[in-house]
């Protein structure tokens, strides 16, 4: 049991924090968002140069062989700075799938390009009807000669409008909501039959609706075994939720800090409003919520690599509940304690609040995951030792 960073982890943290504190203040972020891609290609390159995009991959694929703790460090920092660059979509989701289930050839082709910043991925998975059911997929892939033909519509694909390659889930067998019968494919974003419609998101990121109409891919586009992608998707999404938990902690921490700072400086009735006991206690309650969330983000980080898929998912779900609840409490109160200015686009606090709202809704909100944990035999803690 050791909660300290080792030397390499400390160095990673310092370098990411330094880059972002230099290049990602509030005004810089607004500029980054104005690029056509919705983020700064330059920052992306710098993240690659720092090795951040290489963290989770093996050295043979141009990676650094980092684990969940290293991802946690980066995501916390991303959360603190409200980073717009598609780290989550490319490295955690797309890269995560290739890294988890790809063939050696696929890893060799994709991962080094992700690591050096030249290739961005998006995970084209969710559909209009799927809501929080990660196995609810109607898009089909049918055998066609050596390869496959993919048809379907993907919704709300994070950074799907600017990714060069898409990781597409499709049903090769089974019913609409079966875990069995799902397959994953690597699809060029520019392939014939792929059409994309990008849109901005509430939190200043980008998403896309993607239509796949008779998209032909070769046999080498299939990731892993046909029909067996369900557990891969579940595992990568669990790891992705753990990463989101860490991002959320970064955002909550920053939002809390800004709020406390505001309480110390904003004067009303002749005193700093932080002199009012009610606001002091609110700050304390936000602190409790923050630390409880941080604890659960650690727990999610620890459990993201758990071999037993059921135990893993239960832990991840529990963390997501805590993050959702703490995030809502801290976010709403951060706005409230800022008063009117907290309602404006001109302060960072509102942007954190919106990001936290979207994190809660990503891959299942707090209620969804609470229902999951509650439905497990014995609940979260074992009924008997």
């Amino acid at each position, binding site marked *: 049991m050791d909660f300290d960073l080792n030397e390499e982890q400390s160095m990673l943290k310092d370098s990411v924090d330094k880059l972002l504190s230099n290049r990602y203040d509030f005004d810089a972020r607004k500029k980054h968002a104005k690029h056509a891609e919705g983020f700064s290609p330059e920052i992306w390159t710098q993240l690659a140069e720092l090795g951040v995009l290489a963290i989770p991959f093996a050295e043979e694929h141009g990676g650094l062989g980092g684990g969940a703790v290293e991802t946690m460090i980066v995501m916390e920092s991303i959360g603190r700075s409200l980073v717009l660059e598609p780290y989550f979509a490319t490295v955690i989701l797309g890269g995560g799938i290739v890294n988890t289930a790809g063939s050696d050839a696929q890893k060799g082709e994709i991962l080094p390009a992700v690591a050096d910043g030249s290739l961005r991925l998006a995970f084209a998975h969710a559909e209009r009807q799927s809501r929080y059911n990660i196995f609810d997929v109607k898009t089909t892939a049918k055998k066609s000669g050596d390869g496959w033909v993919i048809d379907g519509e993907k919704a*709300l694909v994070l950074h799907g409008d600017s990714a060069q390659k898409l990781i597409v889930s499709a049903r090769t067998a089974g019913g609409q909501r079966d875990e069995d019968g799902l397959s994953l494919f690597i699809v060029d974003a520019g392939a014939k039959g792929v059409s994309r419609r990008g849109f901005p998101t509430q939190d200043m990121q980008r998403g896309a609706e993607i239509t796949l109409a008779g998209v032909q891919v070769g046999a080498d586009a299939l990731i892993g075994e046909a029909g067996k992608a369900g557990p891969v998707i579940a595992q990568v999404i669990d790891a992705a939720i753990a990463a989101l938990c860490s991002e959320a902690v970064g955002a909550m921490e920053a939002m809390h800090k800004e709020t406390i700072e505001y309480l110390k400086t904003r004067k009303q009735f002749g005193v700093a409003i932080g002199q009012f006991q009610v606001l002091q206690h609110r700050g304390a309650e936000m602190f409790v919520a923050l630390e409880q969330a941080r604890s659960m983000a650690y727990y999610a980080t620890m459990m993201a690599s758990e071999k037993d898929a059921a135990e893993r998912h239960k832990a991840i779900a529990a963390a997501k509940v805590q993050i959702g609840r703490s995030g809502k409490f801290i976010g709403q109160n951060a706005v409230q304690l800022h*008063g009117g200015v907290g309602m404006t686009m001109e302060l960072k606090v509102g942007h954190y609040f919106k990001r936290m709202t979207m994190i809660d*809704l990503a891959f299942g909100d707090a209620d969804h995951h609470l229902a999951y944990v509650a439905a497990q035999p014995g609940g979260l803690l074992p009924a008997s030792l």
Partner: protein
Amino acid sequence: MDLRFTPEELKFRDEVRAFFKENLPEETRKKLEAGEHNGKQAIVDWQRALNKKGWAVFQWPVEYGGTGWTPTQQYIFLEEMQTAPAPPPLPFGVNMVGPVIYTFGSEEQKKKFLPRIANIDDWWCQGFSEPGAGSDLAGLKTTAKRDGDHYIVNGQKTWTTLAQHADWIFMLVRTDSAAKKQEGISFLLIDMKTPGITVRPIQTIDGGHEVNEVFFDDVRVPVENLVGQENKGWDYAKFLLSNERVNIARVGATKQRIRRIKELASLEFDGEDRVIDNPRFREKLAAVEIELKALEMTQLRVVAGEAKRGKGKPDPASSILKIKGSELQQATTELLVEVIGPYALPFEPEHEDGWNEPPVGPEYAAPLAPQYFNYRKTSIYGGSNEIQKNIIAKAVLGL
């Protein structure tokens, strides 16, 4: 003690309901129902329709165009208006400056402004808040210095709702810097076309433009635009603010939003089940409905008490209406986001202004997250909920 509406009151309700049904433009109604904003013209048209019927300034004294309705009738009218839903008459004129003018203004001011307020010939906005003041309203710094038969106004107002449409602004200004802070304040009416006034939009977190900063740079205001006496403006402001609290519960609007939640939750599916069929969701909604029913009864009690106490003497317990009212408005906007779930994500600011492209996902999704963000304001404005609890602690509990 009789806790039901009288037959006469029920008849009145039917009359109001029928009028709304026949006269409220469907487009206007639908926008409100969806959680979108109506544009200036829709608001003007509707208020003029009300004015034609004699209902635009129903709560005013009869001599100035009011209806003479009892508090209960007024309550019924507002309830019907909010559940229709119909836009309220523009509050800055009808609820705020209008009553100040007919109570404290000169005969000339009454003649000049009141009919135009009723018919919304003038669009009014409110110049109270300042960047440095916040909840400490009396800490305002904008000055008005007498120069012959004019005041010269300098300073800045903020959170000025819909100032971008405004013809006139009513203002609190400091006319005596030496006096204690509440005692050097005056109440001015200023034509927004006067040189030296600049309106700067504030973009709120929902992406909308509802509020503004308004800057005053040597703005010359004729002295006849002073309301009442110089340095007595704080009294008029307190009067105005106490009027503002009456309809703050917005029970009808929340009822209407609950209907909307049920409607959309019947359209959205979670697997094979509609969201409305999820027992947990139903319980969360039922809990809100129960609190709302309680609030409705509380509001009726306040209204009945007001009938007895006389107008303009609001119950300090009406802070409950603000606290619970805003909590329930917020809870319902939050539930709408929960209904739509992942489809809260796309940001479509153009949606309200007649975007021609198809929406991302269901057509009803776009306004919901912005509405949730926007409604965080309800526990901040009009005296934050923290301030309301201070009021209860002091005025009701004697702490």
